[in-house]
């Protein structure tokens, strides 16, 4: 990078290298009509990606396929199909350890099949990006959208951002690399969407020109040494200090785990800049009824807010963009006038409600209600949110559901 913050030169694909701020905030944008999967392709095209590994599982198969097309077109350095989701997540780890910028995608049971790798990525400080197109995970088998699987990822030591729509997904993928690769962060980033609702629907999004791209990843900025003749892949993973039963070994592993969590926390200022805040507020700032939601549940809550306004009821939505790190302070500030906090979710366990309760315990007098909640691929009509809100407020329900 030059002294004035500008970049010069081209990447391996021949695209002009520009600063992340230019790419995300300043470059002219053109409106296009595309699916979420196609938005993934467009983001990857501008991300100077070195490697990607894929394995088919609905609904992410199309995004993985489109990244393969980028390899054909010369935008991605290495691309191949793994032998399973576990294989894919292990193989991208190898690529990342070797100093490559890596992206892959998965969904539903594939996420769980690959699960061991996510804390391994985090502990190894690998800034891999996983686009998670969430779907149901439990038997009987389903391919329907449901973000239950995010709850399984919450404590793996990765950053998790939750996009509401294809536009956010596009921008989060690009910002995700930038933040994840900061030296003091350098942990994996999962950019999640609610599968099908975003991946397979088409919407207008604004994208910058395709002849510009992010600066390539510089592995020498890593907080750990990149591999060489002395440091074989996973060398520090295989040195089993925790298998030695003594207090010093325990202390080492405890410190290592804290360090991974600390790294996620250090991402806050960067994420605030590139995501333009860890939360987004919509509706009446002073409202006593507040919906806290992420992903497509935020869209539905916004519509319910509009319906409630027709009834003369002021409400607001606080959309959580970043799940890890979790925006405790921002949420407390945004809900300081709240009497009722409703947490609508597209999953049965209510993982966001748990997060909100933990964040607000002893710090807020608002009543927290984990409703409505849909699962199994159901949509969440805003009328349901509206109806629940009216009930909580003791009002008559006038809409016909």
């Amino acid at each position, binding site marked *: 990078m030059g002294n004035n913050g500008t970049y010069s030169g081209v990447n391996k694909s021949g695209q002009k290298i520009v600063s992340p701020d230019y790419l995300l905030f300043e470059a002219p944008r053109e409106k296009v009509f595309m699916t979420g999967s196609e938005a993934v392709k467009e983001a990857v095209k501008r991300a100077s990606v070195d490697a990607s590994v894929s394995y088919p599982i609905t609904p992410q198969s199309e995004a993985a396929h489109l990244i393969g097309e980028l390899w054909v077109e010369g935008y991605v350095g290495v691309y191949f199909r793994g032998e399973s989701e576990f294989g894919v997540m292990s193989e991208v780890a190898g690529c990342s350890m070797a100093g490559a910028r890596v992206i892959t995608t998965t969904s539903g049971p594939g996420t769980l099949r690959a699960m061991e790798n996510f804390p391994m990525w985090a502990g190894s*400080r690998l800034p891999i990006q996983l686009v998670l197109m969430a779907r149901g995970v439990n038997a009987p088998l389903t391919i329907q959208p449901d973000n239950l699987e995010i709850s399984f990822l919450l404590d793996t030591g990765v950053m998790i951002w939750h996009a509401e729509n294809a536009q956010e997904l596009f921008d989060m993928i690009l910002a995700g690399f930038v933040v994840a690769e*900061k*030296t*003091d962060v*350098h942990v994996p980033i999962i950019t999640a969407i609610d599968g099908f609702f975003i991946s397979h629907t088409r919407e207008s999004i604004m994208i910058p020109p395709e002849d510009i791209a992010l600066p390539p990843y510089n592995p020498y*900025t*890593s*907080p*750990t*040494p990149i591999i060489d003749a*002395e440091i074989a892949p996973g*060398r*520090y993973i295989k*040195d*089993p*200090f925790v298998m*030695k039963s003594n207090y*010093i*070994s325990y*202390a*080492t592993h*405890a*410190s*290592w785990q*804290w*360090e991974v*969590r*600390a790294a996620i*926390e*250090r991402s*806050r*200022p960067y994420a605030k800049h590139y995501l333009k805040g860890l939360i987004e507020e919509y509706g009446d700032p002073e409202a006593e009824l507040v919906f806290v939601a992420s992903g497509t549940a935020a869209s539905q809550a916004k519509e319910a807010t509009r319906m409630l306004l027709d009834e003369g009821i002021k409400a607001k939505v606080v959309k959580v963009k970043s799940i890890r790190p979790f925006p405790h302070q921002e949420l407390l500030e945004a809900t300081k006038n709240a009497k009722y906090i409703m947490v609508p979710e597209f999953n049965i366990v209510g993982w966001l409600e748990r997060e909100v309760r933990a964040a607000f315990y002893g710090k807020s007098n608002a009543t927290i209600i984990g409703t409505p909640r849909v699962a199994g691929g159901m949509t969440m009509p805003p009328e349901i949110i509206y109806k629940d809100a009216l009930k909580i407020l003791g009002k008559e329900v006038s809409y016909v559901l």
Partner: protein
Amino acid sequence: MATLGPYHFSPYPTAIVEGVLTPPPGKGLLYNEIVDEEVAMREAAKEMLTRENPTIFVGPLIIYAWNEEAKEMAKLVREMAEVLNAKIIPMVDYRPKYPKINPEVEINPNHPNLTIWHNNIKACIFIGVHCHFANIALKIIRAETDCLTIAMCAKMGHEDAMITVRDQHPEDVRKFIEIAKQVKKELGK
């Protein structure tokens, strides 16, 4: 357990739990306060000049001459050690050393407290250590010793060190050496 710094400001939990983040560019960290870099440098020099057995822990980014800056930094570290009357103990690599390390000649990020205990070190500077390994070592030192830790980082700094300066390249280290000389004079040493 930890004796320096505010209550709970020690590993398990760590500084980040108290909301302490790495300093912004141009600034340093003095415990949990963001201060001007020069203030942090001055305090670092004072601690190194007044505490027992001050030691500079120098890591692979400097002790292996892998680029021109590393070579220059190595010379500056020697000069810094002379000004601060400090010992130099290298962090040769990051592999756990079993059955034991020799704490008189090296420090290891997985059990740094052994070196500090053995040599009764009360103040130290980490320099040239990859950030991840500096951070795990700093957390353990904070938990297990009463050693004051200072991190001179070429990147974003270390919130688990008690004094941190960031973006430290040869010109910055030269500035620190000059400040250390002034502080030494003021202390009459």
